[in-house]
C-alpha cells in the first residue's frame, strides 16, 4: 500500500472516526446514507422473499404451500414492505443522502441531526411494521381499503401505525434536502448548473413534504375508526368508504412520483456520463421534473374510475393523467438524444440505464392504456395493472437504483465491483423480469383479477410461466449479492473518478474524507460540460496537488 493509499484509507469517512458507536451516532450524511442502505437492502430482501413465495403459491391453482389467509397476509406484506420500507427511501434517503451534498460541493446536509433522527424514525417505523407479522399479520393489501380494513380481525393497526411513523422519516428527509439544495450549493453553482439528480431530488422532496402528511392523517383516522368505532369511512358507522380512497390516493399517487422522479435523476447522470456528452435539453428535463411533481397532485382519481365517483371527476382525472405522460415522454426523448454522437461506454451502470429506458417505456405506454377511461374499466384491478406498476416501479425505479448503486459503489466503498459478474446478473434480472411481468400483461388483459389466491384454469399456463420467470429474476439478485459483498473485501481499489464524470462528487477521493472535500469547492464548469473539459486531465492535476 503506497503512502497515498494508506492516507486515503485512514481519512476515509468509513474509518474516521472508527467504531460502531461513532457510526450509530454519526451526523455524517455519507454514513447515514450507508445506514439507510443497510435498512433498505434488508427490506428488499424481505419483500423479495415474500414475492418469491407468492409466485410459488401461484404455480398452480391448488394449494402449493400456504392457505388463503397466509397468502393474503403475504401479498399485503410484500406491498407494504416494498413500498414503505424499500422503494420510497431507496433512492432519496440512501443514495440521495450519500451523494446530494457531494454533488453540490457541500460538507453535509443542512440539518445533520434531523438527518440522523430520520434514520432512527425509519428504523422504528420498520420495526412497528414488522411487529404486525408477530401480532397476527394484516390481510388488507397495502392500500388498507375500508370497510374491509375496519372489519378484519388482523393486525391492521400496527402495520398502519408503522407506515404513519415512516411518513415522518420521509418528511424530515424532504425538508432537509430542500434546505440543503437552497442554501448549501458551492459558490458558482446556480440553479441551472446543478446536476439533474439534484433537480430530481428537489422535486421529490417537495412531494414528500406536501403529500405525506395526508397519508399520516388518513392512517390515523383509520386507526381511530378501528379503535374507538367513530364512523369516518365505514358505512356501518355512517362513514364513506370512497372518501377513504380519495384520501389514500391523494398521497399514494404523488408517492408514485416520489419513487420515480429520483430514478429519472439517476438516469440523467448515467446517460450523460457514459455517453461522455452534455445532456440534451437540460432545462426541459429540469422543468419536466417540477411539472411532473405539480401534476402528480391532481391525478389521484385515476385509481378510482370504477369506484362510483362522478363521471365528471373521472373525466378530469383521466385528462390530467395523460398530461403526466408528456413530461415523462420528453425526458425519454432527451435521454436518447443525449446518446447521439456521444462516446458510449457500456459499463454496468449504463446497461442499467438502458434497461430502465426499455422497461420504463413499456411501463409508461401501458400507463396510457390505463389512463383511457373506457379501457381502464376492463383492466382495473387485473394483473394488467400489476404488470404496469411493476414495470414502472421495478423496471423503472429499481433498475435506476441499481444503476446508481453500481455507479456510486466505488465512491461509497473505495472498491470496484466485478464488471463481468455484474453483467451476468443484469442479464438474468432483465430476462427474468420480463418473463415474470410481461406475462402478467397478457393474463391481466385476458381478465385475471389481482389479489387472487387461486384462479380458474384458463390462466394456469400464464401463471406458471410467470412463476418460472421469478426464479430467474431471483437468481440474478443472488448473483448480485455475492459479487457486491465480495467486492467490499476483495474488489480492486477504486480511483477517485473511475467513470470520468464531471459532477462534483468525483472530485474527492474514493471513499471521500469525513468532510467530503479537502478544499472549499467552487464551481468551475457545468456538470455536463463534456464538450469543453477533459475530466481525466483535471483529476491528474488534482492528484498531484493532493500528493504534495
Amino acid at each position: 500500500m503506497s503512502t497515498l493509499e494508506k492516507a486515503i484509507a485512514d481519512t476515509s469517512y468509513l474509518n474516521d472516526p472508527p467504531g460502531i458507536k461513532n457510526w450509530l451516532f454519526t451526523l455524517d450524511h455519507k454514513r447515514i446514507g450507508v445506514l439507510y442502505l443497510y435498512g433498505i437492502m434488508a427490506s428488499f430482501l424481505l419483500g423479495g422473499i415474500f414475492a418469491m413465495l407468492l409466485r410459488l403459491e401461484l404455480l398452480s391453482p391448488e394449494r402449493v404451500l400456504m392457505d388463503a389467509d397466509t397468502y393474503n397476509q403475504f401479498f399485503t406484506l410484500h406491498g407494504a414492505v416494498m413500498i414503505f420500507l424499500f422503494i420510497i427511501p431507496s433512492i432519496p434517503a440512501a443514495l440521495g443522502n450519500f451523494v446530494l451534498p457531494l454533488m453540490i460541493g457541500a460538507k453535509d446536509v443542512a440539518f445533520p441531526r434531523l438527518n440522523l433522527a430520520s434514520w432512527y424514525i425509519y428504523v422504528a417505523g420498520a420495526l412497528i411494521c414488522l411487529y404486525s407479522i408477530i401480532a397476527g399479520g394484516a390481510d388488507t393489501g397495502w392500500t388498507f381499503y375500508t370497510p374491509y380494513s375496519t372489519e378484519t380481525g388482523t393486525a391492521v393497526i400496527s402495520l398502519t401505525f408503522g407506515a404513519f411513523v415512516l411518513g415522518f422519516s420521509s418528511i424530515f428527509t424532504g425538508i432537509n434536502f430542500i434546505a440543503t439544495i437552497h442554501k448549501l450549493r458551492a459558490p458558482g453553482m446556480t440553479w441551472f448548473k446543478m446536476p439533474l439528480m439534484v433537480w430530481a431530488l428537489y422535486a421529490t422532496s417537495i412531494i414528500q413534504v406536501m403529500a405525506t402528511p395526508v397519508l399520516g392523517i388518513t392512517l390515523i383516522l383509520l386507526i381511530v375508526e378501528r379503535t374507538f368505532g367513530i364512523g369516518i369511512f365505514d358505512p356501518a358507522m355512517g362513514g364513506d368508504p370512497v372518501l377513504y380512497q380519495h384520501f389514500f390516493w391523494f398521497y399514494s399517487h404523488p408517492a408514485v412520483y416520489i419513487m420515480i422522479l429520483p430514478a429519472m435523476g439517476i438516469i440523467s447522470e448515467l446517460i450523460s456520463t457514459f455517453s461522455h456528452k452534455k445532456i440534451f435539453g437540460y432545462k426541459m428535463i429540469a422543468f419536466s421534473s417540477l411539472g411532473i411533481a405539480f401534476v402528480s397532485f391532481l391525478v389521484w382519481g385515476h385509481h378510482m374510475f370504477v369506484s362510483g365517483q362522478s363521471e365528471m371527476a373521472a373525466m378530469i382525472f383521466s385528462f390530467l393523467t395523460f398530461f403526466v405522460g408528456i413530461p415523462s415522454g420528453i425526458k425519454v426523448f432527451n435521454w436518447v438524444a443525449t446518446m447521439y454522437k456521444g462516446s458510449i461506454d457500456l459499463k454496468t451502470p449504463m446497461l442499467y440505464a438502458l434497461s430502465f429506458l426499455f422497461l420504463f417505456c413499456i411501463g409508461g405506454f401501458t400507463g396510457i392504456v390505463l389512463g383511457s377511461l373506457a379501457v381502464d374499466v376492463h383492466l382495473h384491478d387485473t394483473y394488467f395493472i400489476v404488470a404496469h406498476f411493476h414495470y414502472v416501479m421495478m423496471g423503472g425505479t429499481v433498475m435506476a437504483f441499481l444503476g446508481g448503486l453500481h455507479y456510486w459503489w466505488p465512491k461509497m466503498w473505495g472498491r470496484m465491483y466485478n464488471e463481468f459478474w455484474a453483467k451476468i446478473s443484469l442479464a438474468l434480472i432483465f430476462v427474468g423480469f420480463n418473463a415474470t411481468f410481461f406475462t402478467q400483461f397478457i393474463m391481466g388483459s385476458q381478465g385475471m383479477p389481482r389479489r387472487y389466491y387461486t384462479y380458474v384454469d384458463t390462466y394456469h399456463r400464464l401463471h406458471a410461466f410467470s412463476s418460472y420467470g421469478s426464479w430467474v429474476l431471483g437468481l440474478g439478485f443472488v448473483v448480485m449479492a455475492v459479487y457486491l459483498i465480495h467486492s467490499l473485501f476483495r474488489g480492486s481499489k477504486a480511483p477517485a473518478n473511475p467513470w470520468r464524470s464531471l459532477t462534483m462528487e468525483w472530485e474527492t477521493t474514493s471513499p471521500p474524507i469525513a468532510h467530503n472535500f479537502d478544499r472549499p469547492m467552487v464551481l468551475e464548469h457545468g456538470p455536463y460540460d463534456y464538450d469543453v473539459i477533459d475530466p481525466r486531465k483535471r483529476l491528474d492535476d488534482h492528484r498531484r496537488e493532493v500528493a504534495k
Partner: protein
Amino acid sequence: MDTTGTLFLPPAGSTIASEVDFQFYFIYAASIFFFAVVTFATLLFIVRYRRRGEPTRSDAPTHNTLLEIVWTAIPTVLIVIVFVMGFRTFLKMNVVPGDAMEVKVTAQKWFWSFDYPEGASTVNELVVPVNTPVKLLMSSQDVIHSFFVPNFRVKMDVLPNRYSITWFEATRRGEFDLFCTEYCGKGHAEMIGKVRVVSESEYGQWLEAGSGPAEGEGLVDYGRRLYVSKACNTCHSVDGSANVGPSFKQRFGNSQAMADGSFIMVDENYLRESILNPQAKIVAGFDPVMPTYQGLLKDREVDALIEFIKSLKEE
C-alpha cells in the same frame, strides 16, 4: 363457448366490447410505433457511437427547439385523441338505455345473488337474454366488492350502503366468467359466478320453470346441485377439509363442539337454523362470518340441502 379472441383480449360478448377493443389496439399500435423508434434509435446510437479507447468529445447540439416542439406536440395530439375516445365510450358505459331490464345484484362474502323483476332469484348465476340491455342495480351487504365480466369489458365496484349501477347488452349466447375484482378477504378468489346468456325464448322458459328440482330428480341430488349453485361450496367442503366453514362430510348425526364450549347434536333443526340464522350457534374453531340465507332459499331448497348434508354422513 367461442374461443376466439386475441392474445391480449378475451372473446368479446357485449355491444361495448368492440369500442373498448378498438381503443386498446389503437393505443397498442401507437405505443409499438414510439417504442420501436426509441429502441431503434438507442440501439443505433449504441452501435454507431460505441466508445473505443479514449472518449471523444462531441460537438453535437445540446438542444434543438424545433425538434423539442415536434416531439412534444405529436404525442400531445395523440393523447388528446385517445382521451376523447375513452371518454365517449365511458359515457356510454355509464348511461343506461331506457328500455333496459333491471336485475338487482347483491354481493356479500363470498357470493353473488341476483333478483329478477319477475320474482326469480339466483346465486352465483346471472341468467340474461341475448341482445337485451340489462341494467344492474348493485349493492353490498358487507365490504366493497367489484362486478367484473371480462368478456363484456364491464366492471363496477359494489359498495355497502349505496347503489352502484352499470349495464351491458350481451351479443352472443354462452357462459361467461363473473369475477369479484375488489379484494374482500379469504374467499375473494372464489367469489366467482357465471353469466349465462340465453335466447329470448329460453329466458322465458327459465323464468317459468323457476329453479325447482328437475324432473325425476331426488332431494339429495337437488341438494347437491344447490350446494354448488347457491355457493355453499365456496366455504364448505364435502371431503372433510376445513375451509372458511366446517366441512359437510360426516357432520350429520354427530356431536359437535361449539365455540361457547357446549356440545350440540347435529340434526335437521340445527342445520336449518345454521342456514337461516348462522350466527346463532358457532362451531368451535371457526369465525362467525356466514351471512344468512333467509330469503335466498325456499323451504324446499333448505330441505334439499339438509338431505344432501345427511347423505354425506357415511362414506
